[in-house]
Protein backbone atom coordinates (compact mmCIF):
# COMPACT_ATOMS: atom_id res chain seq x y z
CA UNK A 1 0.00 0.00 0.00
CA UNK A 2 3.04 2.31 -0.01
CA UNK A 3 2.67 5.34 -2.19
CA UNK A 4 4.91 5.87 -5.18
CA UNK A 5 6.77 9.16 -4.84
CA UNK A 6 6.83 11.17 -8.10
CA UNK A 7 10.19 12.54 -9.25
CA UNK A 8 9.35 16.14 -8.29
CA UNK A 9 8.12 15.06 -4.88
CA UNK A 10 11.18 12.88 -4.42
CA UNK A 11 13.39 15.92 -5.08
CA UNK A 12 11.43 17.89 -2.50
CA UNK A 13 11.67 14.96 -0.11
CA UNK A 14 15.44 14.80 -0.53
CA UNK A 15 15.69 18.53 0.12
CA UNK A 16 13.52 18.20 3.20
CA UNK A 17 15.73 15.45 4.56
CA UNK A 18 18.82 17.54 3.83
CA UNK A 19 17.54 20.50 5.86
CA UNK A 20 15.92 18.37 8.55
CA UNK A 21 12.26 17.57 9.03
CA UNK A 22 11.67 18.44 12.68
CA UNK A 23 8.17 19.55 13.55
CA UNK A 24 7.84 23.27 14.22
CA UNK A 25 7.79 24.45 17.84
CA UNK A 26 4.33 24.24 19.40
CA UNK A 27 3.09 21.78 16.80
CA UNK A 28 0.52 19.40 18.18
CA UNK A 29 -0.29 16.17 16.38
CA UNK A 30 1.25 16.25 12.91
CA UNK A 31 0.59 13.60 10.28
CA UNK A 32 2.95 13.09 7.37
CA UNK A 33 2.28 11.58 4.00
CA UNK A 34 5.54 9.68 3.86
CA UNK A 35 7.85 7.88 6.26
CA UNK A 36 10.33 9.71 8.47
CA UNK A 37 8.13 12.79 8.95
CA UNK A 38 8.18 13.88 5.34
CA UNK A 39 5.50 16.05 3.69
CA UNK A 40 3.13 17.30 6.37
CA UNK A 41 -0.56 16.60 5.97
CA UNK A 42 -1.30 19.19 8.65
CA UNK A 43 -1.21 19.96 12.33
CA UNK A 44 -4.28 18.46 13.95
CA UNK A 45 -3.86 20.14 17.32
CA UNK A 46 -5.18 17.70 19.90
CA UNK A 47 -7.29 15.62 17.56
CA UNK A 48 -10.27 15.63 15.24
CA UNK A 49 -13.26 13.45 14.36
CA UNK A 50 -12.16 13.53 10.71
CA UNK A 51 -8.75 14.44 9.31
CA UNK A 52 -10.29 15.71 6.06
CA UNK A 53 -10.32 14.28 2.58
CA UNK A 54 -6.79 15.64 1.89
CA UNK A 55 -5.34 13.49 4.70
CA UNK A 56 -7.78 10.61 4.93
CA UNK A 57 -6.02 7.24 4.63
CA UNK A 58 -2.76 8.96 3.65
CA UNK A 59 -0.62 9.16 6.79
CA UNK A 60 2.61 7.15 6.90
CA UNK A 61 4.27 8.80 9.92
CA UNK A 62 3.24 10.88 12.93
CA UNK A 63 4.83 13.19 15.46
CA UNK A 64 3.30 14.23 18.74
CA UNK A 65 4.50 17.47 20.31
CA UNK A 66 3.29 20.00 22.85
CA UNK A 67 0.58 21.11 23.41
CA UNK A 68 -0.68 17.63 22.55
CA UNK A 69 0.57 15.02 25.00
CA UNK A 70 -0.55 11.99 23.04
CA UNK A 71 -2.44 10.95 19.94
CA UNK A 72 -4.73 8.06 19.24
CA UNK A 73 -4.95 7.25 15.56
CA UNK A 74 -8.21 5.69 14.42
CA UNK A 75 -9.00 3.69 11.34
CA UNK A 76 -12.41 5.28 10.80
CA UNK A 77 -13.88 8.73 11.32
CA UNK A 78 -15.49 9.58 14.67
CA UNK A 79 -12.79 7.60 16.54
CA UNK A 80 -13.90 4.25 15.21
CA UNK A 81 -12.20 1.05 14.07
CA UNK A 82 -8.70 -0.10 14.97
CA UNK A 83 -6.63 2.34 16.97
CA UNK A 84 -3.07 2.98 18.06
CA UNK A 85 -1.80 5.35 20.74
CA UNK A 86 1.39 7.40 20.54
CA UNK A 87 2.98 9.80 23.02
CA UNK A 88 6.01 10.59 20.86
CA UNK A 89 5.16 9.32 17.39
CA UNK A 90 6.29 6.89 14.74
CA UNK A 91 8.43 7.43 11.63
CA UNK A 92 6.86 4.40 9.98
CA UNK A 93 3.21 3.57 10.59
CA UNK A 94 3.50 0.52 8.33
CA UNK A 95 5.31 -1.24 11.15
CA UNK A 96 2.06 -0.92 13.11
CA UNK A 97 -0.07 -2.10 10.18
CA UNK A 98 -1.44 1.44 10.22
CA UNK A 99 -0.04 2.84 6.99
CA UNK A 100 -2.56 4.86 4.96
CA UNK A 101 -5.28 4.04 7.46
CA UNK A 102 -5.85 7.07 9.69
CA UNK A 103 -9.22 8.80 9.42
CA UNK A 104 -9.61 10.43 12.84
CA UNK A 105 -7.44 11.31 15.82
CA UNK A 106 -8.25 11.33 19.52
Amino acid sequence: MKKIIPVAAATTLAAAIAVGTAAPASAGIVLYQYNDYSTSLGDFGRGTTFVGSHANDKASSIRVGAPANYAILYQHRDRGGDSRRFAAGSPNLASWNFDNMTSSIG
Partner: protein
Amino acid sequence: MNARQALGISTLALAALAISGCSAGDPEPEPSGFALPKVSITSQEDVVAKLDFAHGIANTPLDRISLDEPAFSMKQFHAVAVRTDECMVERGLEPVASKTNWSPYLDFEDRRWGGWSVDYASEYGVDAPPNAGPQFFDTLPLGVEYNKAFAQCDESAKDSLKTVFAFTEGAPQIDYRIRTGSSNLAENAPAGRKALASWHACEEKAGIVLDPQDGYPSAQYKAQGKEAEIHAAVVQAQCAVDTGAVQTLYDLQAKYEAAYLDQQATAVQAFVKKRKAVEKHLDAVIAGR
Protein backbone atom coordinates in the same frame (compact mmCIF):
# COMPACT_ATOMS: atom_id res chain seq x y z
CA MET B 1 -9.81 3.43 5.86
CA ASN B 2 -12.34 2.06 3.43
CA ALA B 3 -14.03 -1.31 3.49
CA ARG B 4 -11.90 -2.63 0.63
CA GLN B 5 -8.67 -1.85 2.47
CA ALA B 6 -10.05 -3.35 5.67
CA LEU B 7 -11.09 -6.48 3.83
CA GLY B 8 -7.66 -6.66 2.20
CA ILE B 9 -5.83 -6.48 5.51
CA SER B 10 -8.21 -8.96 7.14
CA THR B 11 -7.78 -11.30 4.21
CA LEU B 12 -3.98 -11.04 4.43
CA ALA B 13 -4.11 -11.70 8.15
CA LEU B 14 -6.39 -14.69 7.68
CA ALA B 15 -4.21 -15.98 4.85
CA ALA B 16 -1.18 -15.72 7.13
CA LEU B 17 -3.07 -17.66 9.77
CA ALA B 18 -4.08 -20.32 7.26
CA ILE B 19 -0.51 -20.65 5.93
CA SER B 20 0.78 -21.24 9.45
CA GLY B 21 -1.35 -24.40 9.47
CA CYS B 22 -1.13 -24.86 13.22
CA SER B 23 -3.66 -26.67 15.36
CA ALA B 24 -4.34 -26.36 19.08
CA GLY B 25 -2.06 -29.31 19.79
CA ASP B 26 1.02 -27.94 18.00
CA PRO B 27 3.93 -26.59 20.03
CA GLU B 28 3.90 -22.86 20.60
CA PRO B 29 5.29 -21.17 17.49
CA GLU B 30 7.73 -18.30 17.68
CA PRO B 31 5.86 -15.11 16.76
CA SER B 32 7.27 -13.30 13.75
CA GLY B 33 6.12 -10.32 11.74
CA PHE B 34 2.84 -8.82 12.82
CA ALA B 35 0.12 -11.48 12.44
CA LEU B 36 -0.05 -14.17 15.08
CA PRO B 37 -0.59 -17.85 14.32
CA LYS B 38 -3.98 -19.50 14.26
CA VAL B 39 -5.64 -19.95 17.64
CA SER B 40 -8.65 -21.89 18.90
CA ILE B 41 -11.18 -20.51 21.39
CA THR B 42 -12.93 -23.80 22.10
CA SER B 43 -11.45 -23.96 25.60
CA GLN B 44 -12.29 -20.31 26.36
CA GLU B 45 -16.08 -20.67 26.67
CA ASP B 46 -16.17 -19.12 30.13
CA VAL B 47 -14.24 -16.02 29.11
CA VAL B 48 -16.42 -12.97 28.57
CA ALA B 49 -15.94 -9.21 28.34
CA LYS B 50 -17.15 -6.99 31.13
CA LEU B 51 -18.83 -4.00 29.55
CA ASP B 52 -19.20 -0.56 31.09
CA PHE B 53 -22.16 0.69 29.08
CA ALA B 54 -22.17 4.14 30.63
CA HIS B 55 -18.65 4.91 29.39
CA GLY B 56 -18.36 2.52 26.43
CA ILE B 57 -15.41 0.67 27.92
CA ALA B 58 -14.85 -3.07 27.43
CA ASN B 59 -12.72 -4.93 29.96
CA THR B 60 -11.01 -7.93 28.39
CA PRO B 61 -8.19 -10.27 29.49
CA LEU B 62 -5.43 -8.30 27.78
CA ASP B 63 -6.09 -5.17 29.84
CA ARG B 64 -3.89 -6.36 32.69
CA ILE B 65 -0.74 -6.18 30.54
CA SER B 66 -1.62 -3.67 27.82
CA LEU B 67 0.66 -0.68 27.32
CA ASP B 68 -2.50 1.33 26.61
CA GLU B 69 -3.78 0.71 30.12
CA PRO B 70 -4.43 4.16 31.73
CA ALA B 71 -2.20 3.66 34.79
CA PHE B 72 0.82 2.74 32.64
CA SER B 73 0.12 5.46 30.07
CA MET B 74 -0.17 8.07 32.81
CA LYS B 75 3.21 7.10 34.25
CA GLN B 76 4.75 7.63 30.84
CA PHE B 77 3.08 11.05 30.49
CA HIS B 78 4.11 11.96 34.04
CA ALA B 79 7.76 11.04 33.44
CA VAL B 80 7.83 13.19 30.29
CA ALA B 81 6.29 16.06 32.27
CA VAL B 82 8.91 15.77 35.04
CA ARG B 83 11.76 15.83 32.52
CA THR B 84 10.09 18.73 30.68
CA ASP B 85 9.88 20.64 33.97
CA GLU B 86 13.59 20.10 34.63
CA CYS B 87 14.35 21.70 31.27
CA MET B 88 11.90 24.57 31.88
CA VAL B 89 13.34 25.34 35.32
CA GLU B 90 16.84 25.46 33.81
CA ARG B 91 15.48 28.21 31.54
CA GLY B 92 13.98 30.05 34.50
CA LEU B 93 10.42 29.12 33.59
CA GLU B 94 7.59 27.80 35.73
CA PRO B 95 7.29 24.01 36.22
CA VAL B 96 3.77 22.64 35.65
CA ALA B 97 3.88 18.88 36.22
CA SER B 98 2.57 19.26 39.76
CA LYS B 99 -0.55 21.00 38.38
CA THR B 100 -1.79 17.83 36.69
CA ASN B 101 -3.63 14.97 38.37
CA TRP B 102 -1.58 11.91 37.42
CA SER B 103 -4.09 9.32 38.66
CA PRO B 104 -5.22 6.80 36.03
CA TYR B 105 -7.76 8.48 33.77
CA LEU B 106 -11.19 7.40 32.58
CA ASP B 107 -10.49 5.81 29.21
CA PHE B 108 -12.14 6.85 25.97
CA GLU B 109 -15.15 4.99 24.61
CA ASP B 110 -13.97 1.99 22.61
CA ARG B 111 -15.62 2.48 19.21
CA ARG B 112 -13.83 -0.30 17.40
CA TRP B 113 -17.15 -1.30 15.83
CA GLY B 114 -19.02 1.94 16.50
CA GLY B 115 -20.32 3.87 19.50
CA TRP B 116 -22.31 2.00 22.13
CA SER B 117 -22.64 4.36 25.09
CA VAL B 118 -26.17 5.70 24.83
CA ASP B 119 -25.36 8.18 27.60
CA TYR B 120 -22.43 9.67 25.70
CA ALA B 121 -24.24 9.63 22.35
CA SER B 122 -27.23 11.43 23.88
CA GLU B 123 -25.05 14.23 25.18
CA TYR B 124 -22.07 14.50 22.83
CA GLY B 125 -23.04 12.80 19.57
CA VAL B 126 -19.80 11.50 18.03
CA ASP B 127 -17.58 13.89 20.01
CA ALA B 128 -15.53 12.59 22.92
CA PRO B 129 -16.83 13.59 26.35
CA PRO B 130 -14.61 16.16 28.05
CA ASN B 131 -13.97 13.98 31.10
CA ALA B 132 -12.55 11.03 29.09
CA GLY B 133 -8.83 10.61 28.48
CA PRO B 134 -5.88 12.19 30.27
CA GLN B 135 -6.52 15.69 31.57
CA PHE B 136 -3.44 17.88 31.29
CA PHE B 137 -2.57 21.34 32.55
CA ASP B 138 -3.15 23.79 29.72
CA THR B 139 0.02 25.78 29.06
CA LEU B 140 -1.41 27.94 26.27
CA PRO B 141 -2.51 30.77 28.64
CA LEU B 142 1.15 31.08 29.72
CA GLY B 143 1.96 32.78 26.45
CA VAL B 144 4.02 32.53 23.31
CA GLU B 145 7.55 32.41 24.72
CA TYR B 146 6.59 29.94 27.41
CA ASN B 147 4.99 27.59 24.90
CA LYS B 148 7.91 27.84 22.48
CA ALA B 149 10.22 26.76 25.27
CA PHE B 150 7.72 24.15 26.44
CA ALA B 151 7.59 22.51 23.01
CA GLN B 152 11.40 22.37 22.87
CA CYS B 153 11.64 20.99 26.41
CA ASP B 154 8.92 18.44 25.65
CA GLU B 155 10.94 17.23 22.69
CA SER B 156 14.17 17.00 24.68
CA ALA B 157 12.30 15.24 27.50
CA LYS B 158 11.06 12.60 25.08
CA ASP B 159 14.55 12.28 23.66
CA SER B 160 15.91 11.65 27.16
CA LEU B 161 13.37 8.84 27.53
CA LYS B 162 14.05 7.23 24.17
CA THR B 163 14.70 3.82 25.71
CA VAL B 164 11.16 3.95 27.10
CA PHE B 165 9.68 5.03 23.79
CA ALA B 166 11.69 2.41 21.95
CA PHE B 167 9.79 -0.16 23.99
CA THR B 168 6.34 1.44 23.93
CA GLU B 169 6.35 2.92 20.42
CA GLY B 170 9.35 1.54 18.56
CA ALA B 171 7.55 -1.51 17.22
CA PRO B 172 4.37 -3.41 18.01
CA GLN B 173 4.75 -5.48 21.15
CA ILE B 174 2.90 -8.70 21.78
CA ASP B 175 0.06 -6.89 23.61
CA TYR B 176 -0.82 -4.82 20.54
CA ARG B 177 -0.53 -7.80 18.23
CA ILE B 178 -2.84 -9.83 20.44
CA ARG B 179 -5.35 -6.98 20.70
CA THR B 180 -5.56 -6.28 16.97
CA GLY B 181 -5.42 -9.96 16.04
CA SER B 182 -8.23 -10.79 18.46
CA SER B 183 -10.51 -7.98 17.32
CA ASN B 184 -9.98 -8.90 13.67
CA LEU B 185 -10.76 -12.54 14.40
CA ALA B 186 -13.82 -11.53 16.43
CA GLU B 187 -15.39 -9.50 13.65
CA ASN B 188 -14.59 -12.13 11.05
CA ALA B 189 -15.96 -15.06 13.08
CA PRO B 190 -19.43 -16.21 11.96
CA ALA B 191 -20.98 -15.01 15.22
CA GLY B 192 -19.15 -11.69 14.89
CA ARG B 193 -20.32 -11.13 11.34
CA LYS B 194 -23.87 -11.98 12.37
CA ALA B 195 -23.69 -9.56 15.29
CA LEU B 196 -22.43 -6.71 13.10
CA ALA B 197 -25.12 -7.45 10.51
CA SER B 198 -27.88 -7.34 13.12
CA TRP B 199 -26.46 -4.09 14.56
CA HIS B 200 -26.47 -2.44 11.14
CA ALA B 201 -29.90 -3.83 10.24
CA CYS B 202 -31.31 -2.35 13.46
CA GLU B 203 -29.92 1.07 12.54
CA GLU B 204 -31.37 0.91 9.04
CA LYS B 205 -34.73 -0.20 10.43
CA ALA B 206 -34.67 2.97 12.53
CA GLY B 207 -34.13 4.98 9.34
CA ILE B 208 -30.43 5.69 9.71
CA VAL B 209 -28.50 5.77 6.44
CA LEU B 210 -25.17 3.97 6.81
CA ASP B 211 -21.96 4.78 5.00
CA PRO B 212 -21.14 1.70 2.88
CA GLN B 213 -17.41 2.40 3.34
CA ASP B 214 -17.30 1.90 7.10
CA GLY B 215 -20.80 0.88 8.21
CA TYR B 216 -21.19 3.97 10.40
CA PRO B 217 -24.06 6.46 10.16
CA SER B 218 -23.50 8.73 7.18
CA ALA B 219 -21.17 11.69 7.77
CA GLN B 220 -24.03 13.84 6.50
CA TYR B 221 -25.70 13.61 9.93
CA LYS B 222 -22.80 15.50 11.51
CA ALA B 223 -22.86 18.01 8.65
CA GLN B 224 -26.57 18.65 9.31
CA GLY B 225 -25.92 19.86 12.84
CA LYS B 226 -25.71 18.61 16.39
CA GLU B 227 -29.33 17.44 16.67
CA ALA B 228 -29.06 15.17 13.62
CA GLU B 229 -25.62 13.95 14.73
CA ILE B 230 -26.92 13.05 18.20
CA HIS B 231 -29.97 11.29 16.77
CA ALA B 232 -27.84 9.06 14.54
CA ALA B 233 -25.29 8.40 17.31
CA VAL B 234 -28.04 7.45 19.78
CA VAL B 235 -29.60 5.00 17.31
CA GLN B 236 -26.18 3.45 16.68
CA ALA B 237 -25.51 3.03 20.40
CA GLN B 238 -29.02 1.84 21.24
CA CYS B 239 -28.90 -0.76 18.47
CA ALA B 240 -25.50 -1.98 19.72
CA VAL B 241 -27.07 -2.65 23.11
CA ASP B 242 -30.55 -3.85 22.04
CA THR B 243 -29.29 -6.41 19.52
CA GLY B 244 -26.62 -7.70 21.92
CA ALA B 245 -24.08 -7.17 19.14
CA VAL B 246 -21.61 -5.23 21.23
CA GLN B 247 -21.59 -7.90 23.94
CA THR B 248 -21.15 -10.67 21.36
CA LEU B 249 -18.25 -8.92 19.62
CA TYR B 250 -16.33 -8.09 22.80
CA ASP B 251 -16.99 -11.56 24.23
CA LEU B 252 -15.41 -13.01 21.10
CA GLN B 253 -12.49 -10.61 21.38
CA ALA B 254 -12.05 -11.58 25.04
CA LYS B 255 -11.97 -15.28 24.14
CA TYR B 256 -9.37 -14.77 21.42
CA GLU B 257 -7.25 -12.63 23.75
CA ALA B 258 -7.37 -15.33 26.42
CA ALA B 259 -6.44 -17.97 23.86
CA TYR B 260 -3.53 -15.88 22.59
CA LEU B 261 -2.31 -15.14 26.11
CA ASP B 262 -2.09 -18.92 26.59
CA GLN B 263 -0.60 -19.65 23.17
CA GLN B 264 1.98 -16.85 23.36
CA ALA B 265 2.79 -17.41 27.04
CA THR B 266 6.56 -17.28 26.56
CA ALA B 267 6.45 -14.04 24.54
CA VAL B 268 3.92 -12.55 26.97
CA GLN B 269 6.11 -13.43 29.94
CA ALA B 270 9.13 -11.75 28.34
CA PHE B 271 7.02 -8.71 27.48
CA VAL B 272 5.67 -8.41 31.04
CA LYS B 273 9.21 -8.56 32.40
CA LYS B 274 10.30 -5.71 30.12
CA ARG B 275 7.13 -3.76 30.93
CA LYS B 276 7.93 -4.01 34.64
CA ALA B 277 11.49 -2.80 34.06
CA VAL B 278 10.24 0.18 32.04
CA GLU B 279 7.65 0.96 34.70
CA LYS B 280 10.37 0.90 37.36
CA HIS B 281 12.43 3.33 35.28
CA LEU B 282 9.41 5.63 34.89
CA ASP B 283 8.83 5.52 38.66
CA ALA B 284 12.44 6.55 39.20
CA VAL B 285 12.15 9.48 36.77
CA ILE B 286 8.92 10.60 38.43
CA ALA B 287 10.59 10.43 41.83
CA GLY B 288 13.41 12.63 40.51
CA ARG B 289 16.04 9.92 40.68
